[in-house]
């Protein structure tokens, strides 16, 4: 209703504000003026906004303020993470995938576990903490300014608390022969709040596949706030994939801030099966003409999981194309949220933008919320969106069962046929096959 109420800060909000004062001087970049100021401004903004609740339109269906009852310690005590830990959380296929491996363990870039042999001349990696302590000029110019968003409390919170992450620079024209696999794993036995930030700069005409994997080794209730800023140069080809398999009680908020240059080709995909409350925000901006982007995702949820995929695509340049496809399978009391917003600026003539969100509900108590928005200021455009929601088609089930396939197997077949359409959008074969295996497993033992 419209009746005014005074907003009281929650325990989690108070704790965050208080902790910032305690840790500010020890955070990376504390001795660099602009970094310190950036953090302080962000904290002031967070104080003004508080954690987003359902009154904030963009967070209407995912009330973080209510879900995040307490804020864990921001200094995460790290128990050593070993090779076998990583194998455990990723499984054989992803662990053995031929890739450049970067490991961020408990919010700290771990050089020992990382391996980028053969990267010379193609790309460079440094830790964010090091870069913040001694920032080069190019970094200062770009960092924190990629597709900036106004009044996003979780982004402000990330800027205030970011402890580490990776800075990747792909050289102009470099074609990476294998994916860069960024493994964000927590091994601590105590709950903590992990805040990381990555910065990726892809040079003109370069080719990159970046995969971010999120897993918790020991603690099921980690809180994570991570951001990846990415600048995609002109004519670069980037595939950006995410595998989210957080702990059963985890709160996970991730934001990707991306800008595409002229003629760039960007393919983003998120596979989400973990977390108690997870939200992935994809903010994408077209800066140059003739670029194309595909954003897609697959969510498979059960129990009382709440997973949200939010996309905001700004068409600021003419002749660009965007495609979105999100699919959710919802069981038990889970809730899937798909919000998409396409904004076409006046200059962005000949924009072609489409969004699609589909959900398949396996139980009567599941919930699906969708809000596909279009905001269009140019007249020569072709934009559309669609949403569907429903249960498993009994006729299809009957068809399969009449041919001797037991109900359970028939259901699994149909669920996989549904979700795999989204997974097929992953271009990298190894990753796609790994995801298809996960989805096939999902109705069975994967619910550990």
């Amino acid at each position, binding site marked *: *209703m*419209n*009746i*005014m109420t005074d907003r009281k800060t929650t325990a989690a909000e108070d704790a965050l504000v208080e902790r910032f004062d305690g840790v500010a001087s020890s955070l990376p970049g504390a001795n660099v003026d602009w970094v310190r100021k950036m953090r302080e401004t962000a904290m002031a903004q967070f104080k003004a906004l508080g954690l987003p609740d359902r009154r904030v*339109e963009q967070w209407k269906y995912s009330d973080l303020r209510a879900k995040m009852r307490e804020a864990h310690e921001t200094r995460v005590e790290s128990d050593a993470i070993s090779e076998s830990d990583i194998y455990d959380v990723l499984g054989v296929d992803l662990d053995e995938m031929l890739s450049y491996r970067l490991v961020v363990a408990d919010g700290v870039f771990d050089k020992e576990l990382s391996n980028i042999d053969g990267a010379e001349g193609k790309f460079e990696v440094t830790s964010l903490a090091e870069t913040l302590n001694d920032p080069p000029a190019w970094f200062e110019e770009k960092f924190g300014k990629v597709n900036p968003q106004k009044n996003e409390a979780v982004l402000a919170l990330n800027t205030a608390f970011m402890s580490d992450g990776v800075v990747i620079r792909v050289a102009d024209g470099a074609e990476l022969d294998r994916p860069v696999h960024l493994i964000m794993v927590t091994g601590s036995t105590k709950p903590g709040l992990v805040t990381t930030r990555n910065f990726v700069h892809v040079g003109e005409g370069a080719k990159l596949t970046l995969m971010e994997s999120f897993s918790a080794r020991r603690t099921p209730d980690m809180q994570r706030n991570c951001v990846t800023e990415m600048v995609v140069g002109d004519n670069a080809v980037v595939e950006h994939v995410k595998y989210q398999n957080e702990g059963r009680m985890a709160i996970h908020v991730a934001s990707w801030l991306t800008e595409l240059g002229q003629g760039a080709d960007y393919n983003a995909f998120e596979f989400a099966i973990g977390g108690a409350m997870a939200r992935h925000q994809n903010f994408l901006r077209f800066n140059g003409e003739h670029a194309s982007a595909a954003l897609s995702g697959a969510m498979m949820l059960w129990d009382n999981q709440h997973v949200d995929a939010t996309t905001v695509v700004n068409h600021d340049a003419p002749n660009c194309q965007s495609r979105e496809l999100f699919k959710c399978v919802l069981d038990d009391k889970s809730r899937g949220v798909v919000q998409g917003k396409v904004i076409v600026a*006046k200059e962005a*003539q000949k924009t072609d933008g489409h969004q699609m969100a589909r*959900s398949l*509900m*396996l*139980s*009567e*108590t*599941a*919930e*699906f*919320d*969708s*809000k*596909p*928005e*279009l*905001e*269009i*200021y*140019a*007249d*020569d*455009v*072709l*934009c*559309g*969106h*669609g*949403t*569907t*929601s*429903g*249960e498993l088609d009994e006729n299809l089930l009957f068809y399969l069962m009449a041919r001797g396939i037991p109900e359970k197997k028939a259901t699994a077949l149909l669920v996989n046929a549904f979700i795999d359409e989204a997974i097929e959008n992953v271009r990298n074969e190894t990753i796609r096959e790994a995801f298809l295996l996960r989805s096939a497993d999902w109705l069975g033992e994967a619910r550990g």
Partner: protein
Amino acid sequence: MAAVRETIEQVKDIDVDQYKYGFSTDIETVKAPKGLDEDIIRFISAKKDEPEWMLEWRLDAYERWQSMQEPEWARVHYPKIDFQDLYYYAAPKSAEKLKSLDEVDPELLATYEKLGIPLSEQKMLAGVEGAGPLAGAPGVAVDAIFDSVSVVTTFKEELAKAGVIFCPISEAIKEHPELVKKYLGSVVPKSDNFYSALNSAVFSDGSFVYIPEGVRCPMELSTYFRINESQTGQFERTLIVAEKGSYVSYLEGCTAPMRDENQLHAAVVELVALEDAEIKYSTVQNWYPGDADGKGGIYNFVTKRGDCRGDNSKISWTQVETGSAITWKYPSCILRGDNSQGEFYSIAISNGYQQVDSGTKMIHLGKNTSSRIISKGISAGRSNNTYRGLVSAHRKATNSRNFTQCDSLLIGNDCGAHTVPYIEAKNSTASFEHEATTSKISDDQMFYCMARGLNEEEAVALIVNGFVRDVLQQLPMEFMAETQKLIGISLEGSVG
């Protein structure tokens, strides 16, 4: 693309000055003092000779309103309204104590004549040709509302024979208090939103319709709203109750003079459909949209809601929105009864500096409920046109169905078209489908039409009428042709 440039030039030059109903009538009026406080509410209530319970009801609403904030979520921009700088009551002096049509101020009759709404029953039966959006079709009972009061209601006797009550709500409060008490505020509660609370406190008139059990209303009912006085707000309240197995089709139309200032129109419409009843509610909204520079025009902040209270009931909203500087309007259906149906058909055309934020809510509560939304938005000039809609299915709404289609058409590149749909499924057996597209009239379509001898303007009119056809077909026969013309007028100058 010389034609496109020409179009833009023309949009800048002409656009909305085409408004036909912009004259004002010089008529003696009784006004309440400016501003709003408890005394004004007492004044309105006293003027209407209302019973005590009604005054209490209003004062309670006023109290709630004071604690509320103006909603800001809609995609419309306007300077803050000074609610103390408005007249909340204005009535033609002669409008009091009317017994028959003969006593109506001839000036008033002339006004309605000019608007194409002949109020004389004889003339209407003779089928006088009119030019307005609600041109007098034979067999339509009209309740004419002028500023704050209802001046005349036609065909009352004939309707009474069928048992239908069709009268100004002020009269209903006195003569049918039990019905009013039972249903008023039962669909749109007093504190539902800022404007409904304001309306509940100060509403001065409106129509009341009651269709008894099993009756199919013998004729179309219609209300014609006219704002005449300057600096006044119009706050009317409509309540339609359809008893078991009854049917009614109701149409409203509205116009206002051209003035430099912005005037507020905050209405509340409540529909109640009981078991097996059907209500069809059509609106042709043509308030003054403001001039070519966006000066003046009506702020149309309306709360409309229908409650399918009984099983197998049906409520259908059809709206053609061409007027108003700002439209903020979401005719909704609460599908409470099992197997109930809700429909929403809308054409919203914006030109000049108009801002439209309109749509619907379909709230599925009962089993096997179904709803259908067809919305066509056309933006031209420098206008912004937003579709905002909610479709939700609650836990118990098993087997509910929704189909939504919202299409937008952009003409010129200074305008905007937006869609903000909310889809909430809390039930696995609910099946929702939603489709939306935004596009412009393609060069191919234009070429095709023009190659067959149509000039540019005719071609656009043909394509636009084709675009809105799904919705036009839902309008009562008599108004279809008029609406088609109205669409032509609204877009005149904005298209080649």
